[in-house]
């Protein structure tokens, strides 16, 4: 039989969890902003709050020291601690799983992989879309409820959350913390149906993927418009749950310092500029094309999954209202949205 947990039990449960894990959850600050933080930083927000940055930064920080050096000696600085991710959204789960696979592919990335070791994920389904005009997870088939990939999933059924178990680890967790859970026969079908209906923004994602799969399809006029309008702030890259590009540099004085990686991205012109000064991607439209083709075409070729999770953050963080959903509308509905 399914289990539920009363909403007022969540904090006590998390207190238990903190003994074993570094626990992160969406935490609302006094100013109203919600960010993934360590539990001790404040109150957990499980409503329909928008979290500006996806939880990717817990495993792939914006600035990360790779190793330190001094007098020619290298000291590795690679952290690991089992992470408990509580209350992430299904779109972000999809993003994390995508990034996991990427960092494992071919040559493994120890910095990322050591941080996901032993990770426990509790997703929460979205009853209302957090980014009201930007979320389009029903179109990308990544929400508002996750189908798999989580350890546990919370379904808001009023005063309590119904627990869906997604892994053996999840099952063991329930058993271990049995005192917090009660049996339930609540039916979640209606809740899920209503939640899906609440995601009002819908795009023809399949059609977009089909169009983009064709090598001859290059909507240059749209790319040019995006390239011209874009302010090159990097927001879409930094907030995207599947963007994983980084720059590497030495932060050092007189041979003493650290090697660092810092978020980077393909919309920037210097990203592909070679030491000689030659740059194959100087034109703005080519960089715009790179981003959309990467998410909607190249990723599908490599993994059979698109790199877009429908989270809508590219749109909601864009100062000039450019976003994946709008691009898809332009190519599939043949109308101007940007």
């Amino acid at each position, binding site marked *: 039989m399914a289990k539920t947990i009363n909403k007022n039990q969540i904090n006590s449960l998390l207190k238990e969890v903190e003994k074993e894990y*570094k626990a992160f959850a969406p935490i609302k*600050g*006094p*100013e*109203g*902003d*919600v*960010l993934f*933080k*360590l539990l001790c*930083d404040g109150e957990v927000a499980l409503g329909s709050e*928008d979290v*500006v*940055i996806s939880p990717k*930064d*817990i495993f792939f*920080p*914006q*600035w*990360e*020291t790779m190793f330190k050096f001094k007098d020619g000696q290298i000291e590795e600085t690679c*952290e690991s*601690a089992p*992470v408990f991710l509580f209350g992430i959204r299904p779109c972000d789960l999809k993003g994390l799983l995508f990034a996991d696979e990427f960092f494992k592919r071919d040559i493994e990335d120890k910095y990322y992989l050591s*941080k996901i070791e032993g990770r426990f994920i509790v997703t929460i389904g979205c009853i209302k879309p957090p980014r009201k005009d930007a979320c389009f997870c029903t179109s990308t088939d990544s929400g508002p409820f996750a189908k798999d990939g989580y350890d546990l999933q919370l379904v808001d059924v009023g005063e309590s959350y119904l627990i869906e178990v997604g892994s053996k680890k999840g099952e063991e967790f329930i058993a271990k913390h049995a005192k917090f859970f009660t049996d339930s026969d609540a039916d979640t079908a209606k809740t899920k149906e209503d939640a899906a209906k609440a995601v009002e923004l819908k795009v023809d994602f399949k059609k977009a993927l089909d169009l983009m799969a064709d090598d001859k399809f290059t909507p240059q006029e749209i790319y040019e418009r995006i390239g*011209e*309008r874009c*302010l*090159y*702030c*990097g*927001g879409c890259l*930094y907030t995207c749950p599947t963007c994983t590009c980084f*720059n590497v*540099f030495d*932060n*050092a*004085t007189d041979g*003493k*310092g*650290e090697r*660092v990686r*810092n978020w*980077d991205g393909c919309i*920037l*012109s*210097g990203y592909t*500029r070679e030491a000689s*000064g030659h740059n194959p991607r100087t034109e703005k439209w080519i960089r715009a094309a790179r981003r959309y083709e990467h998410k909607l075409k190249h990723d599908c070729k490599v993994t059979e999954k698109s790199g877009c999770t429908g989270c809508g953050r590219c749109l*909601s*963080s*864009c*100062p*000039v*209202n450019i976003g994946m959903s709008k691009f898809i509308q332009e190519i599939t509905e043949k109308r101007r949205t*940007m």
Partner: protein
Amino acid sequence: MKSKHTLTTCPYCGCGCGLYLVSDGAKVTGAYPSKEHPVSKGALCIKGWNCHEFVNRTDRLSAPLVKKDGSLQESDWETALSKTAKELRAISEKHGPDSVAFLSSAKTTNEENYLMMKLARAVFKTNNVDHCARLCHASTVVGLASTFGSGAMTNSINEFEKADLFLITGSDTTAQHPLIGSRIINSVLEKDAKLIVIDPRQIELAKYANVYGAQKNGTDVAWINGMMNVIISEGLEAKEYITERVEDFEKLKEVVKEYTPEKVEEITSIPKEKIIEAARLYAKAKKAMIVYSMGITQHTTGVDNVKSLANLAMLTAHVGFDCTGVNPLRGQNNVQGACDLGALANVFSGYQKVVDEAARKKFEAAWKVENLPGNVGLTVTEIIDGAGTGKIKGLYIMGENPVISDPNANHVREALQNLEFLAVQDIFMTETAKYADVVLAGATFAEKDGTYTNTERRCERIRKAVDCVGNSKPDWEIICEVAKRAGYEGMEYSHPSEIMDEIAKVTPIYGGMSYERLEPWGLQWPCLNSEHPGTKFLHKDKFAKGMGTFLPCPYKPPAELPDKEYNFTLSTGRVYWHWHTGTMTRRTSVLDREVPQGYVEMHPENAKALGVQTGSLIKVTSRRGSIDIKAKVTDKVVKDSVFIPFHFKEACANVLTNPALDPIAKIPEYKVCAVKLEKI
């Protein structure tokens, strides 16, 4: 793994975006936008997104330095602070109080600017205190104060979302104030707002303009008068508004009647049809916003330019309403605040004049001192000149880099070398700090508490995210320590909030502010008392000075025009990726990579004649010096004009610029000087 998020304010431009610094306890490891913040709304520009990086750089100053045997050596605070206090005191006693001077900083907090001017005035009894606002918006402060009564941006950033016309001149808005630029783009593309751009460089926004005119550098008064000429001759002026709210309309009519579109075309080279179209569009708009910046102010006619824009707005009733006004965009994160807090040679905090005896009495009582000086002090450029001539013998510079940022850089170096004592307080070893006798290691925005006031007059908090690097100290503490060692007891605070409480007591426009009330998103001045909600836009119902005044100006040419030998016009400015002298952005990997070196923009026809292409090295020479720099060939500049960003010390634009000043605002003419170009 990350553990802490600290809400603070971006240290770059005047937008004042709210962001969270992420830290792992020791280092800042990221910067994320605040969604709820009224300016950032979940977005930042690329400088903001990367503002954590320079904080972590290993070449940060981590201890005070004192010159010993000709070189700067690491020292302890007691030595550095007492030396600073003692030397300045000795010079002041020997040569009189006006032989020392203080340069404050638009990069530091309101509290620190207040303390710097208090140090100059209360402790060293001189009004020789100024800061880089002199180099950017001094003309605005004078020009708008004399026409409207208040020298600040009239409206708020979010009002850019609902205006229906923008007249942008001398502001590369998307590059320099990206989150204002974005609002303009969105309004134009999504809400059909109209856009007029008048700029000698074809800025990014120009491509969306209904009217774009490229004037000859330094001819702004002419085209603005031209627009007013058209408006009056077509009867489009706001007659009722003028009668009720503005004086001296007849004087305006008299001056602008000469500026027919034909004559204006001759002076400015903007086709007369464009002048007429711009005038009609602007006059007929309901909610029109003028947006301007350094392209208007950095001229020997800077004040005239500003007055003319103010005249234009009053003529058409385009000031004093929601989404309608005159908006000088302040460059530095806290240049508005540094002005507000009196880091200017002529005013105490809140623009209370030093020549006003009542104001002096008030500050004497508050600071428990006697005989505050009543003469207007020297400005930034005059201080540097004074150092050159020997009039200024001791100088204390906080967070400014005049060797790169001031005009005629070679002259600045000589002047600094001529000083008996120079103290420089900064976060990195700048080009200026190299000339210091004492270097005081200050703190970045990430390491201290305080407030900044953004371009829309919003005073907002910055909050400490990590500890100071090594042995460095928050700037406010350093100033207090110097004051104490100079024998003054009235500068002891345990936290910047106490400084703000003092500011509120003596500064009417900040009268209602306290750290408690500034939570979470700050307050916009005027905020007169503890119940006052702050002010979204200025001059509602009446101008700050009562009646507005038309102050018409005739066109005067720039101080240095091209001639046979120096046959190009140079203007200087900034690029999107970098900030001022590059101290922060050139230490940010992504930003430095995007534009790693300086360049001179020139028109393809000029490039062809010189036989150069993008990447060719050329020598640019003015009457003051010369630099070697790479060419960037682009039709975004007009023929015979060149543009050089001033961020790069290796190709320092300010070696070339003309220190000729606006007679009232004392702002140098960065935007026009004559140069010649040679292929190397």
